[in-house]
């Protein structure tokens, strides 16, 4: 079976033979950082194009189709355009915070990449509190948004930032509780162990209805957390023109834009890891032949397939639903999602204790 595991071990062995351990570790770090940045750029380009194509298909139009075959290089061209643009800083803005904000948002997104298992044994940092780490870091992105909104000295930005603050803080809760159901089922915070526990079936199948409910709540909550429609109140362009990034232009705007898509990718990757078995292939009970065929598909393909499916679902939401109002958004969280997920967690705990899951 083809796996990325071989490559990583080969590189590591080679480095440790050639150099002393400290230097080898440093070089590994550099390689990882470079890979992460490349992945960032690549994902950004792919996801933006994907969004535009999905939107176009849903809206009975063609979407970008001029630059490159099927419009493949459209986002590359857009990025080039954004790089060449002048990055304006408003006169009355707090210049330091204004320029810092996009990098904070970006950095948070980058940090979140660390514990994600892209394929079998292909993980930057298999931290033993992986799930906790993700919840902790992902709530930091609101600081960047608040910073951007406040520093712009623009009332639209400020309103957008305030909305986003209220939104992210409250949706953290139900996202956290939904993740917690899986932690309860697995009994571990380590992502690799959560994946390993899904060897004989994904949690969404094994965990009965509570797992499905948790999955739905997780998807809703992360859609809200990444400020995507129908929860895109922070930018709500028909109300606040562009919300917190109204004053941003050029590459600084592009960083916000990129961070949004990377965040989507990351939350979808986490969703795929927790509920859909990460890189685990689909196995159905005792169908040996079927399971065997599934095993031949590389683990990275499994992981990417699941992640992109979830990304597609989130895009599908965006191009279907109208936007909620801020008080309805908070109502949804506090009156519906939070009680349901608390109840759900209780159910899951009972299931886990009594060992009713497969």
């Amino acid at each position, binding site marked *: 079976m083809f796996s990325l595991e071989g490559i990583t071990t080969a590189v590591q062995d080679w480095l440790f033979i050639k150099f002393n351990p400290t230097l080898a570790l440093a070089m590994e770090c550099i390689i990882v950082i470079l890979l992460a940045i490349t992945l960032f750029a690549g994902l950004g380009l792919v996801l933006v194009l994907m969004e535009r194509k999905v939107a176009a298909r849903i809206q009975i139009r063609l979407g970008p189709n001029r630059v490159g075959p099927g419009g493949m290089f459209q986002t590359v061209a857009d990025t080039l355009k954004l790089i060449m643009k002048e990055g304006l800083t408003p006169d009355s803005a707090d210049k330091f915070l204004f320029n810092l904000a996009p990098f904070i948002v970006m950095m948070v997104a980058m940090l979140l990449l660390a514990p994600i298992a892209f394929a079998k044994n292909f993980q930057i940092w298999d931290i033993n509190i992986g799930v906790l780490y993700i919840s902790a870091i992902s709530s930091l992105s609101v600081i960047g948004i608040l910073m951007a909104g406040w520093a712009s000295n623009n*009332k639209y930005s400020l309103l957008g930032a305030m909305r986003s603050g209220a939104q992210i803080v409250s949706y953290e809760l139900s996202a956290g509780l939904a993740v917690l159901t899986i932690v309860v089922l697995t009994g571990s915070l380590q992502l690799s162990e959560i994946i390993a526990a899904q060897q004989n079936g994904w949690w969404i199948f094994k965990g009965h209805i509570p797992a499905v409910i948790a999955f739905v709540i997780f998807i809703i909550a992360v859609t809200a957390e990444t400020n995507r429609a129908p929860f895109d109140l922070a930018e709500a362009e028909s109300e606040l023109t562009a919300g917190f990034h109204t004053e941003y232009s050029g590459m600084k705007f592009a960083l916000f834009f990129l961070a949004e898509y990377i965040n989507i990718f990351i939350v979808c990757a986490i969703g795929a890891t927790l509920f859909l078995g990460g890189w685990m292939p689909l196995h159905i009970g005792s169908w040996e032949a079927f399971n065997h065929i599934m095993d031949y598909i590389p683990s990275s393909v499994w992981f990417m397939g699941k992640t992109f499916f979830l990304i597609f679902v989130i895009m599908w939401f965006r*191009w279907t639903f*109208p*936007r909620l109002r801020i008080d309805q958004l908070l109502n949804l969280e506090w009156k519906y999602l939070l009680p349901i997920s608390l109840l759900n967690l209780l159910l899951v705990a009972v299931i886990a204790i009594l060992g009713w899951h497969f």
Partner: protein
Amino acid sequence: MYNQTEIIKDTTNLGPEGELIINMGPQHPATHGVLHLVVTLNGETIKKIEPHLGYIHRSIEKMCESLTYRQFIYVTSRMDYLSSHINNLGCALLIEKGMQIEVPERAKYIRVILSELTRIASHELWLGAMAMDLGAFTPFFYTFREREMITEIMEETCGARLTMNYIVPGGLMYDIHPDFQKKVKAFIKQFKEKVTEFEDLVTNNIIFQSRTKGIGILTAEDAISFGCTGPVARASGVSCDIRKLYPYDVYDKVEFDEVIETAGDSFARYIVRVKEMNQSIRIIEQLIDCIPEGDFVGKTKNVLKLPKGEFYTRVETARGELGVFVVSEGGANPYRIKFRSPGFSNLSALNHMAAGSKIGDLMATMGTLDLVIPDIDR
């Protein structure tokens, strides 16, 4: 009194009681044109809305004073460009009333069919734009698909897609295209199939309903007091359809219902417009097969001269009652023209409707008012 520098100062500072003052527009995605609202906010709650108009003011009333009666009709297409045909019709009706010009039956039938097509096109555009105001982008494209069919019918028969100028005093500029009836029927068929789409996508959508129900309530009394007309007033339970009350052309011969809702909120206004589209289809279906043969334009003099006096006609545009008021001195040009545009009066109710609600509600309220800025500024 505001002047330019004061507006700028106000936006960087706070209001007298520490409120946020936001200049919404003239360039804003939700104002559909160059409407400028100065919104005073207390947090997310709106305290006061003050419209600043005139960004697209062309003084059409003054312009018309120097045009002849034949010429001034085309200018009115530029007022409410989404129901330009109905605007033209209002002006033509006024001249016909003033000069007692006999209009052939054929022309009357075609005028009504085209008016109703215009109304559907306008409501379709409104539906898409309104959904977009609330953050749903996709219905916009679906509505434009059907609207495109109407504009193509218009293009084929009138020679233009939006500002048709198809009406002359006494009838029509030229006869309908031979394919007209066939195409209109094809449109009706497709429209009936596709109109259910919006029920799934918009009308029954829980988010849409919660965004519009109980939002921007206008009571019947207020609607009358603010001079609201059209779907805005009808959603509040005021019967004000000019087509029913003062029928013109062949509206007295067709059967249709005046759509009236009583809730007076944004959702009622939405429902009124959707049902109105169906009523328009009903009118077209009754007329399309029985367009009488004959002339398409009546006999008129070369130079039209309205007798001395004051004349007023009203027509029901997609947005409400358009009143055309002409004062004639007996010459070839009108002495004074006043257009009582529906949007102008409807906009004046905005502050009353939206004060006290959230910014998001303002979009729902403004969206369902169906403002066309050139119609307000004239």
